[in-house]
Every structure is written in structure tokens, then in C-alpha cells.
């Protein structure tokens, strides 16, 4: 899952759960049945789980673009020089 996919998964999860909570509460209140509310909400949670938990392809539409290996070779990591380390040792003594 890429960065954009993570953002999408997070937002989808929150919006879907809130929407199902509103739907479930009104359904339960207007049919005067507590069980309807709980079952509707449970169904909503299961659906949200199926949509946002697995790593679906649509969460991976913005892959990260890494630098080319050849580009990295042109700018090598700075290596600690031998002189510096010997100087430090001499100071300690």
C-alpha cells in the first residue's frame, strides 16, 4: 500500500463507519427495534473491514519513484577519513 493508498484507506474507513452508524441508528429508531440497529451496524463494520483491510490494487496506484541506481553511484556516501580517527585517538591519550 502506497502513501496515497494509506490516506484513502483511512478516510474510507472513517466515512463508511460514520455513514453506517447514522443509517443503523435511524433504521433502529424508526422501526423501533434495537436489534435492527445492531445488525445493520455490524453489517456495515464487516463491509468496511472488507473494503479497507486487504491490500487492494486501488490502494497501489501511486507507487514511489526511487532514484536510479546509476544516479546514486554519482553521489557516493561520504566515508569517514582515516586521519580524523587517528587524531581523535591521540587527543584522548
Amino acid at each position, binding site marked *: 500500500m502506497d502513501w496515497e493508498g494509506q490516506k484513502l484507506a483511512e478516510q474510507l*474507513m472513517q466515512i463508511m463507519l*460514520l455513514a453506517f452508524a447514522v443509517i443503523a441508528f435511524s433504521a*433502529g*429508531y424508526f422501526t423501533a*427495534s*434495537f436489534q435492527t440497529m445492531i445488525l445493520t*451496524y455490524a453489517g456495515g463494520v464487516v463491509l468496511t473491514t472488507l473494503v*479497507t*483491510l486487504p491490500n487492494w490494487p486501488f490502494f497501489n496506484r501511486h507507487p514511489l519513484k526511487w532514484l536510479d541506481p546509476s544516479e546514486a553511484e554519482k553521489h557516493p556516501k561520504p566515508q569517514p577519513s582515516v586521519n580524523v580517527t587517528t587524531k581523535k585517538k591521540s587527543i584522548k591519550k
Partner: protein
Amino acid sequence: MHSFVYRANALLTFAVTILAFMCAMASLSDSFNSPTPSAQVQVLNINWFQKQPNGNDEISMTLNISADLQTLFTWNTKQVFVFLAAEYETPKNSLNQISLWDGIIPSKEHAKFLIHTSNKYRFIDQGSNLRGKEFNLTLHWHVMPKTGKMFADKIVLPGYRLPGEYR
């Protein structure tokens, strides 16, 4: 970061938080209900009335209890507990309460009832104060919700009098 388990944790936490909030709202919706219950109790017969060897008065009576408690039920009501208490005053105690009958109403369909019964629990005074005593019959109820706040109320039915002599 943001692995499968992380997402599962976030989803579960948020889902349960919302569920708690929905339950709170359901409990809150109960307070918009304004019940109009009614109750009548007739004392059909005093079966017997005597003084126990230890000096306490005991009485047995036959009661006709009818009540309509349907308006107490909302979508968030699990059951209603009702009990009928005899309440009277003695020189020693300003309020004596004796439970004579109780019952659990499991649903709105059972909330309108008429019961013909002798007192389920013994009507014994701690002392000898019952002869000619005026008393109230009070129907108490406790509404037990599926979630949230419990409600309790009562209907006081005054003006009953016990016989002046043992029989």
C-alpha cells in the same frame, strides 16, 4: 507502519467508539418518551387476619391488580419490573413498605394485564399495628433499558383500610 494489523486495530477501535456513542444516543432517546401508565387495585377479600404468637400481625388478602404499562416501553426497553407494595405509617416508623406481589414484564404485549391473586409475599407487620389501619397500595416499577439509564416511578393508590378485628 500501516500494516494489515495496524489497519485492523484502527478500524476496530473506531467502530467500538461509534457503537458506544450510538448506545448513548439510544439511552438519550428514552427521555423523549413521556409515559402515561395507569393502575387499579381492588382488595376483593380479607382471607384471614391474625396475631402471630410472637405478637406480629399477619394478614392474607385477595387482590385484583390491573394495569396498563404499555407506554413505558420504548425501542430501548429490555423489560419492566413491577411490584405492588402496601405502605402505611406506624408510631415507630413513618413509612413501612411491604411488597405483596411482583412481576417481570418482558415485552409491550404483556404490559396490559389483569391479575387475580392472593398476596405473593406475606403481609406481616413488625408489631401489632394493623387493626383498622389505613394504607396505600403503591405500584412501583423499574424500567430496565437495553443500554443506558434505568428509570423508576410509581403510582400511589390511597384509601384502603384493614378490618378492625382479627378473623
